[in-house]
Each structure stands twice: as C-alpha cells, then as structure tokens.
C-alpha cells in the first residue's frame, strides 16, 4: 500500500464519509433476494444426482433407439464399430433376442395401441417441458 500514500488523505476521507450516501430503494435487498430465489440455476445446483439422470433419460433413450436401429438395419454400422466377427457372433444374437421380445410385446393390437399412446404421451410431456423451460428463460431475461 506504499503507493497509496501519494493520495492518502485522512481529512478528505473523513469529510467524504460525511457526505449524504447514495442509497438504493429501501426494499432493495428484498428485491434482489426474491430474484435470487427465482433463479433456475440455483435450484438446479442443489439437485440430487438422480434428478440429473432423470432429466437425461429422454436423451439416453433416444441415443439407445438410434443405436438399436442402426445396429439392426442393413447398414454396416455394427461391423464398422465393433468389428464384423464380434458383431455377428456376440452382439447380434443379443440384439435379436431383445428385438424378438419387443416384437412379442407389440404383436397384439392391445399392446400396440398401449405403446402408441405411451410414446405419444411421452413426446407431449417432452415438448411441454422444452416449451415451458424456454418461456421461463425468456421471462427471466426480460426481468419478469
């Protein structure tokens, strides 16, 4: 703080401390704290891990579906990624069993309709969440 000595002036400091302060409105702290409590980042920051995983679930499901589709399609995706021998001898039988069990589930009309309804509901919930998140961010950015 040696250099501060050049401008240090206790008399002026005391005098300026006596000047009328610029103070914001009386409820300033309350307003800031209200906004703090509405901040989405901080409700997220204290989220337990399982809630993070739950929010990631739709994306994991999507990636898995795409992966399954590519592996069981006629495209040489499985050969390319896992090696032809490993894919055809080890992985493909498991995938086939998995798909067969799935096929058995959707073989009746009743289960097919149930699946269609569940998928539609899932997509609607996902869209709703995405839209409401967008609206929340928009209103925060506008200071609403």
């Amino acid at each position: 703080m040696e250099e501060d000595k050049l401008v240090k002036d206790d008399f002026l400091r005391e005098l300026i401390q006596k000047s009328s302060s610029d103070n914001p409105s009386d409820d300033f702290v309350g307003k800031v704290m209200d906004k703090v409590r509405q901040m989405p980042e901080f409700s997220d920051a204290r989220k337990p891990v399982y809630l993070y995983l739950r929010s990631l679930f739709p994306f994991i499901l999507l990636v898995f579906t795409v992966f399954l589709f590519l592996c069981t399609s006629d495209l040489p995706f499985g050969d390319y990624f896992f090696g032809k021998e490993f894919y055809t001898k080890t992985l493909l039988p498991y995938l086939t069993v998995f798909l067969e069990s799935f096929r058995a589930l959707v073989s009746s009309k009743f289960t097919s309709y149930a699946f269609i309804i569940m998928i539609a509901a899932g997509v609607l919930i996902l869209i709703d969440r995405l839209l409401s998140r967008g609206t929340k961010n928009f209103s925060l950015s506008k200071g609403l």
Partner: protein
Amino acid sequence: MKYQDDNFYIECVLNGDESAYATLVAKHKSLVFSIALRILNNREDAEEIAQDCFLKAYRSLKFFKKKSKFSTWLYRIAYNAAISRTRKKRLEFVPMDEYVLQNYSVNNEPKTVIGLDDHEQAVLIDRALQRLSDDENLLITLFYKGENSVEDISHITGLSSSNVKVRLHRIRKKLYDEISVIMQQEVKRL
C-alpha cells in the same frame, strides 16, 4: 450481530444457505448503487443495474477464486454492467510524468472547514462533489468512500495503478479548490 468477513458469507451461500447472500447485498448495496449512479446518472437505471450486478455475482459465486477481495470483484461487475448499459467510454488513460506526480502539490485542508460542524461539513462536501464530473466522482467514491486501494480501483476500472493515482491526485486538488471557492462564496454572502 457482528459482521463477519465477506468470505464467511460466501461459504455459507455456497453451502446452500442462500439467505446469507442478503447480508452481502446489504453491506455492498450502497457502493454498487453509487458506481452505477455515477455512470448512468439515473436512479432507476442505477437500481436496475445494481440488482443485475448482485444476481450476476450470485450466479458466478462458485467461480469466485478469492484472489481479489469480494468487493473488488463485485464493483468490477457493477462497473462493467453500467458501462455496457450506457455504451459510455471507459475511463481513459491520463499520461503524466512520475516526477510531476511526486511533486504535485495539494493544498492542505482548509482550516475553516475544520471549524464547521458535521452537518455543515456534509453540506459543503456534497456541494463540492456535485461540481466534479461523473468519472471524478466515481473514482473519489471508490477510493475515499468505498476505501478501495489504488490497486483495487485499477482492477475495477481497468486503468493502470499509476493512472488511478494521477487521477486521484488531480481530483483531490480540484476538490480542495472547489471547497475553497464554496467557502469564499459563503463568506462573501455573509
């Protein structure tokens, strides 16, 4: 209750006690508001910027590395936010010879001021401060009122330390001159 160190409240906030942030806001609100007001010249805008500044600081609190004081970090956020709002130019570099700086004389405190009571002194300094420019007011507020060091002000404004010193030197001299002028005017009026 005695005010603890800023870092104590920061730790509380980071450990999930968001109400501890209210204490930090209450402590620093005046100077954050003053910085914004000096730059924006409008109380409503200054209040909005001051609120935004505290929200931004809260959001970034986990990234605050405690290399500088919390107040310096906070005031820098306020300064940048207010400057961005006005698109005003940042404080500019003032060239000055170090020799001149060392020998820059400032009048000693006017003796007549010491004879005034606290209220009269407050009125006098308010009038003198009103005669300074916004930039000058900002620096003087940060140094003498906010009790920030030259180094802290350098971090807040982006000016070099020697430049802050030069400016503070000039402002100090100007302020004493203004005080003398006001005192003379008062004497003439009587």
